[in-house]
């Protein structure tokens, strides 16, 4: 090889090594990544990850071959102006062409077979006895969760599921197309109005996981988030029992005053506190906001944009559209002590 070629080859190899190091560094550094797609915690996401690993390895092999061939073609097996001799004129080679058709085809078959197998395995149309059904209803821009078998359990922003039990998410949208994305637990599935989509999974590791809407759905698409709490069976049953209990009725202090404000304010047009106020769900179909019966027990609010603290609740009620563009909740003009008391009431609804 000529000295210039050797220098080029060295330089480009070092550059390639840097690039690879950067890639690996990129993958490994930093964290935590609450929406990480590479930390599976359910049977579904583990199946996806193992496919992903296989494809990444095969893709990397192909990429290395292509890069090596390009380095060979550009730096080693070609000539430059002024070099002696004739350049090659080869423009056809049947064996070569067959090889580079058949080998990629075989690689693709190696990817396709487990792909199809996983697709079929992860989309059942029958569920075993004991499956927990969770209904997901997407709204602009928050998530509603209903538990039909747990009698009227209706909450928002966070969904609880037990480990080691088949969970069947049955999902639809109240308005436009959204997408229910919980990377560690269930991948994603679009949520389409007029259609029922499903995700079926068995979670295996208790913890708190993040989720977000991943189909552009309007002004606050970026703010339509949620949390998934994977509980042990005992903790899950406790949570269900708690959510099914009637709401706390404060009798003294700012919370009691807040309860009176709630009774007089227009909140009940959109929000339900079971047994206290709220219109029937059919009546308020287009305008309903989240069920607030046990609002105080939730960790987040407003589509999981904010932690559930009194300051954040007050900020939200004061001017929803300012913190969440396009929000359907109007400003009620509440401030000062009234606002403080209403917040105290809502937070008391544990």
């Amino acid at each position, binding site marked *: 090889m000529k000295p210039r070629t050797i220098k080029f080859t060295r330089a480009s190899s070092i550059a390639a090594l840097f690039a690879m190091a950067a*890639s690996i560094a990129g993958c490994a550094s930093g964290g935590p990544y609450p929406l990480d797609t590479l930390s599976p915690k359910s049977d579904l996401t583990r199946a996806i990850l193992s*496919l992903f690993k296989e494809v990444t390895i095969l893709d990397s092999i192909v990429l290395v071959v292509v890069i090596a061939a390009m380095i060979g073609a550009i730096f080693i*097996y070609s000539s430059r102006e002024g070099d002696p001799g004739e350049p090659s004129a080869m423009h056809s080679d049947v064996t070569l062409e067959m090889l580079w058709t058949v080998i*990629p085809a075989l690689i693709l078959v190696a990817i396709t077979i487990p792909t199809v197998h996983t697709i079929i395995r992860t989309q059942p149309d029958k569920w075993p006895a004991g499956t927990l059904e969770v209904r997901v209803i997407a709204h*602009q821009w928050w998530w509603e969760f209903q538990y039909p078998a747990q009698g009227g359990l209706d909450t928002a922003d966070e969904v609880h599921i037990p480990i080691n039990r088949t969970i069947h998410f049955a999902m639809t949208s109240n*308005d436009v197309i959204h997408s229910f994305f919980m990377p560690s637990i269930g991948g994603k599935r679009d949520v389409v109005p007029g259609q029922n989509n499903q995700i079926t999974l068995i979670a295996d590791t208790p913890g708190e996981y993040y989720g977000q809407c991943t189909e552009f759905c309007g002004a606050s698409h970026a703010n339509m988030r949620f949390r998934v709490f994977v509980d042990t069976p005992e903790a899950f049953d406790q949570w269900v029992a708690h959510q099914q209990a009637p709401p706390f009725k404060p009798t003294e202090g700012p919370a009691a005053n807040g309860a009176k404000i709630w009774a007089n304010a227009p909140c009940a047009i959109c929000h339900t506190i079971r047994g206290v106020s709220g219109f029937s769900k059919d009546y308020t179909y287009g305008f309903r906001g989240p069920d607030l019966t046990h609002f105080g027990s939730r960790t987040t609010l407003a589509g999981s944009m904010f932690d559930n603290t009194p300051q954040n609740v007050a900020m939200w009620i004061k001017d929803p559209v300012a913190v969440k563009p396009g929000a359907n909740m109007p400003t009620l003009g509440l401030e000062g002590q009234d606002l403080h008391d209403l917040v105290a009431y809502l937070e008391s609804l544990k």
Partner: protein
Amino acid sequence: MAAQPKPIHLEQANYLEGGGIYGWLTTIDHKRIAVLYGVTALILMGLGGTEAMLVRAQLIVPNNHFLSADFYNQMFTMHGLTMIFLVVMPLETGLFGNFLIPLQIGARDVAFPRLNALSYWIFLLGAISLNFGWVFGGLPNGGWFGYANLTERAYAPGLNIDYYDVGLLILGVSSVMSALNFFVTIVNMRAPGMTFMRMPMLIWALLVTVILLLLAFPALTVGLIFLFADRYFGSHFYEVIAGATPMLWQHLFWIFGHPEVYIMALPAFGMISEVLPVFSRKPLFGYPMMAYSIILIAFLSYGVWGHHMFATGMGPVADSAFAITSMLIAIPTGVKVFSWIATVWGGRLRFTTSMLFALGFILEFTIGGLSGVMHASAPIDLEQTDSYFIIAHFHYVLFGGVLMAILAAFYFYFPKMCGRFMNETLGKWHFWLTTIFFNCTFFPMHFLGEWGMPRRIYTYAPDMGWNFWNKFESISAFCLGASFLLFFANVVWSWFNGERAGADPWDARTLEWSIPSPPPIYNFVTVPTVHSRDAFWVEKYGDVEASGLGEKRVNVEYQSLPTPEEIGAIHMPGPSLYPIIMAGGIFLAGLGMLVGWFRLVFLGLGLLAFCAIAMSFEYKEWGEDNPHQVHESFLKLDNRKVGVWGFIGSECVFFASLISTFMVYKSRSIGMPDASILNIPLTSFSTFILLMSSLLMVLALHGFQSGKPKVGTAWLLGTAFFGLIFLGGQVYEFTSFYREGMLYNTNLFSQCFYTLVGFHGFHVFIGVVWLLVMAVAGMKGKIGTSRALSVELCGLYWHFVDIVWVVIFTLIYLMRTINRA
């Protein structure tokens, strides 16, 4: 022979000179039209790039308030729309297709030069429509893919989506018109001896691209028509309340959308296949497989659209099928990548800026293609789709791939277009800066996608682990944008001050390099006869495999100064005002649609129709042989016949989309009326009349062909008369349904019925107008035996409309009892 309205001065030195502004406004020279497209697209590239910079500026830190949420949504929508429809497509087909197709195939112009100009003016109009929101009403903000039902009035009340709808409809007309033009040109106007397997690979790529355009755009057109009907006429094509589904939009959009990405990729493949052999001094490796792989990619591209919809719940069978077809399409693409590398292998390389971009293309496009293979596996896609991983994928194939190929072609062909080189030093800086900052901007998006960052979000929380790489990408993006300033400066400076280039500055291989730079208006003094692939190389060095080093190069006399006799033998069409006026008519119609003044729509369409008819009489010898088709095509076909067949192909997709929608929706329609309202006996009678009209059409053609124009004219009038009876039957049918309470937006059945049958009726109406125009010409004795072709063309259209009616009558009327799946 040709008595032109205005004589053109063929003695001008080259196509760029003469005529002033009026000359540019009325030009029908494919080279000037190419320059118009190029300048417009480059300006729009600056705009689209600025939109991207704004997006990245908003994302540089979490919870940023640099842009409002709605403005951000407008910016990412416009960035996508601009780059796809206003930059990449016009550069590939409008600039390079227009400039190079006639030059590479040895023709003097495209098949329909005035249509070519019209395509440009309509394109300009579409660009303005899409961007009008800067001035008034707000830009489109529903994403470039505009998913229903977010685009319905209830969720998007402003003008934003209306600009999207009307703008894309207008751009679609321009694209399909261009596609038809290039299709006929490539099929029918190749120089003698240039068989398909001797065409330059860029021509292969463009031929297949325009076929894709013809057969894919109508699906989008239908989707946009449904959206327009929903927004303006109160229909419910995408609304659940009427039993419809927003998924219809996604299917129609992606049936267009996936071929669309190959419409963008294939010309890029063609350009790379032109650049690499020249700068490697070797023929393209595996020419036959390269051609077949282009065809296979195009064919398969119609079968993969569902891979954009893996998360939508199509079911395991559909998911598996689309995963399999998407994997399949990787095979011919891989063949191309390896063939390009084999082209370079063993060659004698020259690292011009153009070559650097071409080599960069191979690597970047491969990376993008490999991430595409990941997305093709549906379960993996459930984690990756709608995340930054996808953004990384398509920017690698579209920017690192397609745009780099366009830049390679730009540096390569710039000398041919204006006779000057682009500055190589600036070019190399452009290449390295772009490559480095492109990878810095888009490679980390793979990480962000893996860490779950969704697409199309105007901001993100600070505790997601995305902060560092977003900042890194934003800063890299700003540097990337700056590197393009180098490119724009180079273009402008070099156009006026660049080093002069001769006819063949690169020692290249194909016919366009055998004529002066910039070319004369008529391209070739004498149309060459082609004996092999790489015809010009063979002319210079005697053999396609010659390296050109050892052999003495034949002193090629570049065709520059023709003799007066040679000039006299060249017939070129003159400039025309009609294209720009027709575009004005479409502008009025589009404006009317936007503001809801339907009188303005009719005025605009009327102007359009008037100009179309006038334009067909513009050249005095309209009654004689086609003045532009001087040389007999070696397929022995007339350009207009091939054109009508191409048009019929795209109309098939149009009606197939309408009919499929009807078949899907008829079982979802709620309430009355349903198909029982149809009057079978009456419609059977009008169907019979329409079929008989086809018979009369055949008799009319026979009359003209056997030299009896009066007989022919009589039968033409008979055909038109029967067509009018059919239309009368339709009018009676529609008004009686209306009186029975079936309005347009009553239910899904009514809206599908009126749309489908209404559009068909409109086609019959156009046919009747055409027949009457022909009849008038026949009565004036303008249709001789040799001109019977124009009657034949009308007949082709008329029979097609009849066949569509047979399908509609069978499926909608006769098979109306087949309702439940």
